[in-house]
């Protein structure tokens, strides 16, 4: 492993010889009212330094006390991620100096994290009929630091510090280096975020920093029968999943090019920290916090350990509702959705699933409900950046509309016009139909209409008589113009019957 290679050997590498190795660390802000060790609010957006106290600013003599809800949300997350849950867990001090860390240490967990080994299964990005398992190393509960606002003018002005965020509970989820592409890392992040939102443990708002991720990446390269590993790089500042994917992609290419030039392996160079620069779409070397590698963890003497009983863990387990993977299975198995459609729907969150279930059950046609929600509803939500909760058509109204389609009263094209009217003028189904002048057409009217079409279009009729039944299609549009309420299917069948086809 990691033997020296020649320039010639390195240039002969093909894509198949390179494996990308990625591990992620994800920080999730748990959705508690108060901070991890004190009663200060975690509400985002308050004026600076109005949500702090002696505990979260680390005044001497103050004592932290652990927040029960933070424990519960951590355990809930751990259970959903198939983690071993600790029966004994404790907190340690991670020592470093930084202006937004008022105590000079962060309360974190070192050797007794609340959640141990777990895993998360993902669709294989190369073949979605298969899954890939990402093993989770651990998930531990720690406090957040404050926020530094640096002088952007480059005049060397002071940095300003806001400690409102200091002490907010974070769950740090650490994966093993199991991901093999940037796309897979992004898929992991998407699925993790989905699970966290289904669990309602975090709102995962990345703009507010409630979900942050760092990535560790290097390459394993096969050279003449031996395998070498490039130096590991930790990438910080990947503030969206798209940025994470791009940063990791960029870094994989950079590492390969660099290795081809200098041949340095993991044994030759220490781990490096690089930051993703969205402006230039590159990673750049970050200045190391001096001696940051030596955190000198030790048990926090201000805190005592927490023990968890089977009953407590079981009671939290019983609060876990179906997770995204189970919903996909149910939508495919019980409601006949295609895997792709089920995945899209689950990806929209619980609200859309509930909406679908209501409509599917109400109109009695899951497939139609899935199509309408997959197309009409989701398109509207995407275009208007709305959520299902603010969608103007309730599931009851949608059920009524689709019930009329199922019953043959409306065809799908007309029903879409009705839906447009309902949205634009805030109408009930019937009022929208009235407004469009939609009313049932009786058989006599249909027959009269068809007779007229037959009389006016002798050429088409000749074609039909000549055995080309498909030619009737040319008359459907004309029928719609004469009477928009006439069902195209009915018109088609009636003409064929009258012509004697």
């Amino acid at each position, binding site marked *: 492993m990691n033997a020296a290679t020649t320039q010639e050997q390195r240039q002969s590498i093909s894509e198949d010889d390179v494996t990308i190795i990625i591990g992620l660390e994800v920080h999730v802000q748990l959705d*508690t*009212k*108060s901070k991890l060790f*004190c*009663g*200060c*609010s975690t509400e985002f957006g308050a*004026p*600076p*330094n*109005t*949500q*702090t*106290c*002696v505990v979260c*600013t680390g*005044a001497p003599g103050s004592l932290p*006390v*652990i*927040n*029960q*809800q*933070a*424990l519960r949300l951590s355990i809930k997350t751990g259970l959903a991620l198939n983690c071993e849950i600790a029966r004994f867990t*404790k907190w340690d001090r991670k*020592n470093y*100096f*930084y*202006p937004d860390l008022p105590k000079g240490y962060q309360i974190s967990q070192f050797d*007794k994290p609340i959640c141990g080994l777990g895993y998360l299964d993902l669709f294989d990005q190369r073949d979605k009929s298969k899954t890939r398992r990402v093993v989770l190393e651990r998930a531990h509960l720690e406090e957040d630091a404050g926020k*530094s*606002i*640096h*002088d952007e003018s480059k005049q*060397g*002005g*002071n*940095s*300003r*510090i*806001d*400690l409102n965020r200091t002490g907010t509970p974070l769950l740090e989820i650490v994966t093993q280096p199991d991901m093999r592409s940037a796309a897979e890392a992004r898929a992991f992040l998407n699925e993790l975020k989905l699970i966290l939102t289904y669990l309602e443990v975090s709102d995962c708002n990345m703009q507010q920093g409630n979900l942050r991720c760092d990535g560790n990446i290097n390459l394993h390269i096969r050279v003449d029968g031996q395998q070498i590993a490039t130096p590991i790089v930790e990438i910080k500042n990947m503030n969206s999943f798209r940025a994470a994917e791009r940063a990791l992609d960029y870094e994989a290419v950079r590492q390969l090019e660099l290795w081809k030039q200098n041949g340095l392996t993991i044994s030759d160079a220490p781990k490096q920290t690089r930051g993703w620069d969205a402006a230039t779409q590159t990673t750049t070397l970050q*200045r190391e916090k*001096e*001696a940051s590698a*030596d955190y*000198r963890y030790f*048990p926090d*003497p201000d*805190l*005592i*350990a*927490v*023990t968890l009983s089977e009953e407590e863990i079981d009671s939290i387990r019983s609060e876990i509702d179906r997770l995204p993977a189970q919903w996909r299975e149910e939508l495919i198995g019980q409601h006949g959705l295609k895997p792709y459609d089920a995945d899209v729907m689950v990806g929209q969150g619980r609200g859309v699933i509930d909406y679908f279930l209501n409509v599917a059950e109400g109109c009695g046609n899951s497939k139609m409900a899935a199509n309408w929600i997959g197309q009409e509803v989701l398109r509207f939500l995407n275009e208007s950046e709305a959520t299902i909760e603010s969608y103007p058509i309730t599931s009851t109204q949608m059920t009524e509309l689709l019930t009329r389609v199922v019953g043959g009263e409306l065809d799908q094209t007309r029903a879409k016009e009705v839906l447009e009217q309902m949205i634009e003028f805030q109408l009930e189904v019937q009022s929208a139909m009235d407004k469009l002048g939609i009313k049932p057409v009786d058989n006599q009217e249909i027959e009269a209409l068809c007779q007229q079409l037959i009389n006016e279009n002798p050429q088409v009729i000749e074609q039909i008589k000549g055995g080309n039944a498909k030619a009737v299609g040319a008359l459907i549009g004309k029928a719609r113009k004469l009477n928009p309420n006439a069902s195209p299917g009915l018109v088609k069948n009636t003409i064929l019957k009258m012509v004697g086809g």
Partner: protein
Amino acid sequence: MSDSIDRETVEQVARLACIDLPASRVDETAKQLAEILEYVGQLEQVSLPDDVEPFFGATESVNAIRKDELSPSVARPDILSNAPDSDGEFYQVPPVF
């Protein structure tokens, strides 16, 4: 256990702890630290049965847990009065970079 502590270790510890230790006091500090470690090291002479679990804190009690409830924060002028420098809203610190 009377391991001596070398100058390098003392300097490293001082750096990690952000303590300005004059070079003239490094030897003296090394000696003091060694004495402290030796004193604490006496504990290692106690023989323990193998099945004793390690002890992580100064007390055996566990589970001091509070409900997720809000309590008033400290008024900003009061909390900022602890700061060496502030603008009334933020703590002010020398530029980090």
